[in-house]
């Protein structure tokens, strides 16, 4: 496959960054709100969930959890709590990730419809789009789209004249990566400090204000209307047999590449295709040193692993994670310690401060990296970093933030050990420029 291969791009078909997004009328003209109509008029809520389950839609927020399974844990029927919530996780803050912005700015009605269909599936009473505060344009466009949808009776008390209704509003955040973690997001939406919550109870049982709640990523949800319209088989077909996973995926690439960007491609497209065919390879004079497959919280992979299919299992078997699927190319002019320092500074700064290893471990790792960069490290510091990759690993901390922070570190320690060793103090004195990084 190359960049000219033609295939379906349901999520981005109507996105054209050079013009205003589709209005409600325009969106309806290309088939918009048909899925909502179909769901509400022709399908029982459980049918929608079943369709999503059959389609094997997996969460695009990073963890790949099957969406239909998540929804099916929501209590349904007459005995279920009256208040139920669906929240769209639009807090996109994973460094290197810029796909949800594209979807929201590019076709806000698609997300609005997706929210409504999904809300119908779980019979939610309120729906919120938790949008990161910096996405000013997305907020404007989403709010405008919601207003239009309300006028047309798609949002409100009796949607399409039926008995079910849901309110939909945009909630903008005030900046904190941890708000993307779904239970922290719920706390944040409640107007609290965004510390994650202990699970169990899972949000589907006791989420927002203690009521059943579903949290899904923007991209995940945007698939839902298309699945409702066209069915599971069509959805499976989208990945063209390149992956066990179904559908398309918004892949992307950034770093010093010729043509950075984000493209909707069949699930399982290889990293090499993304980097070379779509992003045009590295800028002249640069070579690939390593790459992050899907955001700052994934393990580095090496150039020789570029032929891996970008799907959850394949990247997982290669000891990394597909994460958000937006590749970050690190070129050979980069000092891996400085790259890591940048990453770990991010994680240390964005730690919510709730659990010990993350709160007090990450800042320590930052200080060690600074010392190593300044060639003032101590030999045992490398051992300490190594220990941290265990002590801050999965299950050790309260949420997945710190384990995410350890992924690039542990892979860097594995692949670029010599660069760490070079930072130990026996080595030549640092240059003034190097020293500056310390401050």
């Amino acid at each position, binding site marked *: 496959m190359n960049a000219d291969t033609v295939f379906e791009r349901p999520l981005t078909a109507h996105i054209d960054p050079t013009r205003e997004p589709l209005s409600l009328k325009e969106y309806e003209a290309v088939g918009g709100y048909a899925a909502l109509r179909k769901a509400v008029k022709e399908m029982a809520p459980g049918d929608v969930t079943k369709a999503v389950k059959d389609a094997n839609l997996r969460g695009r927020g990073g963890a790949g959890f099957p969406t239909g399974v998540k929804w099916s844990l929501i209590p349904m029927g007459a005995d279920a709590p009256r208040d139920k919530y669906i929240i769209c996780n639009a807090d996109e803050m994973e460094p290197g990730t810029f796909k949800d912005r594209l979807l929201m700015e590019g076709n806000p009605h698609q997300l609005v419809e997706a929210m409504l269909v999904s809300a119908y599936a779980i019979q939610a009473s309120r729906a919120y789009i938790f949008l990161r505060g910096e996405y000013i344009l997305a907020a404007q466009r989403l709010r405008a789209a919601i207003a239009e949808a309300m006028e047309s009776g798609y949002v409100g008390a009796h949607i399409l004249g039926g008995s079910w209704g849901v309110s939909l509003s945009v909630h903008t955040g005030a900046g904190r990566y941890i708000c993307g973690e779904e239970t922290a997001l719920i706390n944040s939406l409640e107007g609290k400090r965004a510390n994650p919550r*202990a699970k169990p109870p899972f949000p589907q*049982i006791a989420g927002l204000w203690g009521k059943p709640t579903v949290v899904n990523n923007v991209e995940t949800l945007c698939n839902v209307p298309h699945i409702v319209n066209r069915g599971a088989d069509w959805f499976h077909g989208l990945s063209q047999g390149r992956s066990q996973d179904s559908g398309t995926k918004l892949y992307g690439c950034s770093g010093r590449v010729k043509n950075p960007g984000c493209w909707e491609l069949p699930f399982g497209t290889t990293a090499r295709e993304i980097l070379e065919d779509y992003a045009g390879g590295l800028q002249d004079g640069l070579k690939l040193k390593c790459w992050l497959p899907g955001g700052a919280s994934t393990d580095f992979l090496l150039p020789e692993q570029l032929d891996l299919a970008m799907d959850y299992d394949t990247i997982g078997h290669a000891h990394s994670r597909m994460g958000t699927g937006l590749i970050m190319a690190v070129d050979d002019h980069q000092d891996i310690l400085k790259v890591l320092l940048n990453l770990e500074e991010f994680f240390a700064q964005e730690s919510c401060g709730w659990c010990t290893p993350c709160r007090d471990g990450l800042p320590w790792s930052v200080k060690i990296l600074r010392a190593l960069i300044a060639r003032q490290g101590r030999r045992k510091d490398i051992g300490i970093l190594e220990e941290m990759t265990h002590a801050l690993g999965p299950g050790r901390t309260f949420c997945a933030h710190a384990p995410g922070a350890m992924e690039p570190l542990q892979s860097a320690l594995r692949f670029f050990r010599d660069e760490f060793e070079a930072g130990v103090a026996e080595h030549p004195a640092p240059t003034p420029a190097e020293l500056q990084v310390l401050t």
Partner: protein
Amino acid sequence: MATIHVDGKEYEVDGSDNLLHACLSLGLNIPYFCWHPALGSVGACRQCAVKQFKDADDTRGRLVMSCLTSATTGTYISITDPEAVAFRASVDEFLMANHPHDCPVCEEGGHCHLQDMTVMTGHSLRRYHFTKRTHLNQDLGPFINHEMNRCIACYRCDRFYREYAGGTDFGVFGAHDNVYFGRPTPGTLENEFSGNLTEVCPTGVFTDKTHSERYVRKWDMQYAPSVCMHCSLGCNVSPGERYGEIRRIENRYNGTINHYFLCDRGRFGYGYTNRKDRPRVAFIAQDGKLAQASTEDARARLGGLLRGAKHVVGIGSPRASLESNFALRELVGAENFFDGHSDAEHVLVAQAIAILRDGPVASTTLKALESGDAALVLGEDVMQTAPRAALSLRQAARGLGQKLLAQQKLQHWQAGALENLAQDHYNPIFVTATHATRLDPIATETCRAAVEDQARLGLAVAHFIDPAAPAVAGLDAATEARAQRIAECLLAAERPLVVSGTGAGSAEILQAAANVAWALHARGKTVGFFLAFPEANSFGLGLMDARPLGEALDALANGAAEVAIVVENDLFRRAPTARVEAALDKARLVVVDHQDTPTTRHAEVLLPAATVFEGDGTVVNNEGRAQRYFQVFDTAYYHPDIATTESWRWLRRLLSDVRGDGHDASTFDEVSSACAAVLPQFTAITKAAPQAKFRILGLKAARTPHRYSGRTAMRANLSVHEPRASQDADSPLAFSMEGFNGTGTDNTPADQRPGALVSYAWAPGWNSPQAWNKFQDEVGGHLRGGDPGVHLFTANTQASTTYFTHIPAAFVVDNTTPRVVALPQIFGSELLSSRAEPVASRITEAYVAMNGTLAATLSLAEHDSVAVTIAGSVLSLPVRISDALPDGIIGVPDGAPGIPRIATGAQATLKVGAAA
């Protein structure tokens, strides 16, 4: 029960607990910080990790937080697994990275949970070689020090202060490694339970400021099991002494009463005992002034006085022990023994006792209040009169969260889920009072009305519950509906509570409360009935059936009696000044007290009494539980010329002088046993604690920790020859580190240390208050050696319910002569604590409160001055407008400087503009 496997051994545990709780209950050590038995699990610190295996064959296992994992049957864990051990050490290392190395100057040093856990995890070498993050501190008022650099961010303070205690002026600020725990702006912590932060905080961020000035290490203080004297609840305390001064009060665990927490009055009110102006030797009046005298001279004088007098009256005190009151009664004769309460309180206490003793429902315990799921608080402002009970009631309200957890099949310790499910919903609590109370924020409904209207509401509630209870005629529809709502709510509850007391100054309120409790009982409900009493030993004194004080005052004023012996009482707090003066002007007055009060100034002879810390005694708390307190230290050890001793011992000496029998050296057990023998209602008191001859493994229990240092030099300023340690003939405790100091968890049988003889919390490796874990049958349960205290009577559940039938008339508003209510104050209303400097600084200024309507009719605005005439005294007071007060009622703060003690219910006249 559940069977779990820990490091290859099988144990039976309570399956509803988490693994941390279960293992600690088994006596196994797992380090932890964020978990607290009363606060539940949140999984923040990650210190409690253990390895969990799928089954007996699994060898890989995975780390889990023991505080967040259920102890269900078939659980296999390892505490000693190397990976778990290494992880726990690294958690401690992370915590210590920013922690200052200031243990030598830190006031937590030596009873610091962080120190203990650092030793337990084995983290000993600092590898962190970078700068530490630092914070600025806040001035949090007279009680609490703040040293944020020591914070390890376990979030316990926040969870205790805001969730558990309902404080509003505290929070967590910032994020990542810059989280800050404190007030939004510097200033006094307002919550009445702020002092518990010093024990809840596992390190030295929050420490006891009252202790700072005269700081001493935990191991260098001497302790004895003691009881708080500052209200009627009888919370157990552990006072620490050094060089003849009480240096600090800490909570003493009693699983039936206060368990882990005290109120600030109880914790910080001890300073009265250290006052320089206390009488510490005898005084005899000379030329109208009291002059120091030797004990011999004073006794000689008193012998003559008592032998010559025709008629001697003895006036007891609700803040003196049973033994002291009894010894006075013995000295003067039962017919000449008078109650030390005011006459109004005399009636109320008698009424309250009769209700609890003769009615079908006995008192519930303070701890049991927490498991109530609906409450009617009738007329009693518990936060001010019996503060610790307000904390328990708050837990009853929060119990809704527990119900919701259970509905979701979640465990009771899931603290985060509890908050999440409950949000700001509480179990129903109905609060009636004449004024706004600090329980109002969690109240489902509040009713502000005059006492008779509150009583009418209560009686109506009782009638709705059980139609056999008398109906109240003439209620308005709203009150009728409210009564029905309350009745339905109480009936719907599994464990309804009825809380009231003497604080409203109304026997009708007490009767109404009794009717409600009895009606619930009649309907087959397990009702928690709880009455607050005026003072620490009001219940005990009330049981002595003494004659009312007014009769003694009259007898003195009219010459029928010529000598009065007043024990630990200031009569000016008990009756109007003019009446007391009329009596004392005529009388020859003997006072035994440890405080210099207006009464002592009228004394002809003044004998220096011991405070609760300096002597032994028994007091009876509001539930009728007799509790023993023990002498903490021997005053004469440091200052041989000090003559203070228990009032009962003075009175026994006087008795022996009068009788001339030479029996001068009564012991506590003698007096206590005599009391039990003479007054059958006190038969049980000798069981409140072991008697002096009791030994554990042949030893007395030590009052000081093993490491207690410097005893050999303590008296070097007097003589370099070290005297023998003081001997204690009154108790099974030794004034020494030589004695039994075990917990019962080591190789000694578990029940060898009775709960009543645990002076302070210490166990090997556990120096902080967390060491209570080692004394409990299960963590957070009862003391293994039994919770201290004995009930003097059991519920008369077979008693037939004879409802009170008197229905008070509705209150008639008269704004020209409004009724005065004394507004009880946690700081100020109680005498002894008000004499502690830090508490004194929290006492409100005098004011008169009234609602806007009354203020408007008098053209008064906030802060305006008004002359208030109450029972003949004219007070010039600034106005405070509080619309919570009903029409026709004004309030003055009880115990504020310049305000005499006013009996609730007096009539006042207000004159605008004029100053007194």
